[in-house]
């Protein structure tokens, strides 16, 4: 299982796959705090990172973990942390700092039941809106979800690429089922992977403006110690990185950090479609639930129901175009979630008006089963 070279077929747990994905993406710094069900990510990286010349550190809490990875990121590292609900709550403070300083980093949240200590070892999807709006202020952020062990690997690589390319924190929402599932997967060889690294400035250091706008809206990023002395602050700042309260500059800054995500929409927004060509009723799902949904769609097809599935990989920015198309195509859309409707709210929001958005919610700490979705599909067709 150790040798992940070539198209080696290995048996991996979801959490382990996230760790290997991070390593494949070039992650060389990890700070974390133990929490079920995300601890395996720390465990694997504590063993593997030093071998690869990277650094692993177990901090005193999640606030510190997030602080450390932002610090490491500003010093040039590709950094990641992993946690679950309660830790995710603590991370929010410095996640906001990562947003405003545009520090590339990846945060993995292996979701468990909440609120508070909640259901430590049970599955849930209750942190979806929190991932989007958890830290205060109107900030842009990218949220990806994973549903299988192979996705754990590939989406983690993708998350690092998005983080580095757009200078943004990227959140990966896994869940207890995905995290603890062991599956046989084919790991791609390092040569097969597309890796993106942040763009460093090339101008003379006197000319460097750490937050200058450009056509990508993503400023070139110098690391501490590279000769581009600059100021990094959690205050709203001007192009040079110094605090400002001038309405014009504040507006410019906040607009730009939103724009960079909008401009990257085509690269950031990912989804998978299954049996959608002629679908008349479809399921929109994400995370482990999308696998129940896939099973349900297969069985529904066997029963003659023209069902389809849209699996959302990117949750935020919300894949409006994909969902909009599905809503136009199908009269009924079922959104199964292990919460009281955090994505169905988004689906309803983008509903052009004539589609029926049906929620299927389960909040008992167990995975939604294929039968439950199938039942809806058959009844609502």
């Amino acid at each position: 299982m150790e040798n992940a070279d070539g198209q080696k077929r290995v048996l991996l747990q979801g959490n382990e796959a996230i760790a290997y994905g991070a390593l494949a993406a070039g992650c060389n710094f990890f700070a974390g705090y133990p929490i079920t069900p995300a601890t395996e990510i720390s465990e694997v990286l504590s063993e593997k990172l030093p071998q690869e010349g990277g650094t692993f550190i177990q901090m005193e809490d999640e606030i510190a973990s997030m602080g450390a990875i932002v610090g490491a990121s500003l010093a040039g590292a590709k950094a990641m942390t992993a946690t679950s609900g309660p830790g995710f709550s603590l991370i929010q403070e410095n996640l906001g700092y990562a947003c405003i300083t545009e520090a590339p980093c990846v945060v993995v949240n292996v979701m468990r039941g909440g609120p508070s200590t909640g259901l430590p070892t049970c599955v849930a999807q209750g942190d979806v809106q929190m991932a989007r709006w958890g830290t205060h202020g109107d900030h842009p952020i990218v949220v990806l979800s994973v549903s299988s062990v192979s996705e754990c690997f590939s989406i983690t690589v993708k998350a690092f690429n998005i983080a580095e390319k757009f200078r943004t924190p990227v959140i990966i929402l896994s869940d207890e089922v995905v995290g603890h599932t062991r599956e046989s997967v084919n790991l791609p060889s390092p040569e097969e992977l597309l890796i993106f690294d942040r763009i460093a400035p090339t101008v003379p250091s006197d000319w460097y403006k750490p937050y200058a706008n450009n056509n990508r809206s993503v400023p070139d990023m110098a690391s501490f110690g590279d000769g581009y002395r600059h100021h990094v602050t959690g205050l709203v700042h001007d192009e040079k990185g110094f605090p400002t309260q001038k309405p014009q500059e504040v507006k410019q800054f906040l607009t730009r950090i939103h724009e960079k995500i909008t401009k990257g929409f085509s690269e950031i927004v990912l989804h998978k479609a299954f049996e959608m060509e002629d679908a008349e009723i479809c399921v929109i799902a994400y995370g482990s639930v999308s696998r129940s949904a896939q099973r349900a769609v297969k069985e529904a097809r066997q029963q003659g129901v023209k069902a389809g599935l849209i699996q959302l990989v990117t949750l935020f920015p919300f894949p409006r175009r994909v969902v909009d198309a599905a809503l136009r195509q199908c009269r009924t859309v079922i959104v199964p979630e292990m919460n009281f409707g955090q994505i169905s709210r988004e689906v309803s929001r983008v509903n052009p008006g004539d589609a029926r958005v049906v929620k299927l919610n389960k909040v008992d700490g167990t995975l939604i089963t294929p039968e439950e979705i199938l039942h809806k599909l058959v009844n609502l067709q």
Partner: protein
Amino acid sequence: MADAVGAYDGKHVCQTQSYGPEARGGKSKAELVISNEPIDYPKALQVDLLLAMTQAACDAYFYETKTDGLLVVDSTYVEQIPTSRAVAIPFTKIARQDIGRELVANMVALGAVGYLSGQVDLKHLEMALLSRVPKGTENMNRDALQAGIAEARRIDLSALPGSIIGDWENEV
């Protein structure tokens, strides 16, 4: 076992398990799905083979087995076997008496289940097992596995009833 089937046999496997306090004792469970196609729903829907190492586990999970599923129990601990379509092997006792360590009871069971399931190449199972156990314990674990396989070979599955509910179901 998942490693053997997934990595060495080249089939698709998917294993989930219960976590938390119960994983340290009592009715913990691990589920394994084996398929020739990619697996969608990661959990087991209906179980073909249930291995119960304790009475509590047997009671809790027995009802998830298929009507023609096979129940394998550790007869050291499971006293009430809820079906006649069951294989009772005293894994813990074998481990204690033949190998000398109760700890390897699950390896004995793995050997038996590997054999009884018919889903795994037994050579691969041994290879996968040896690649995962701590150094210095290979022989003990191999012996345990082989003891399990040997024990299971003595079982004649065809002698068991076809379904746990009853043969009449097949006639309907």
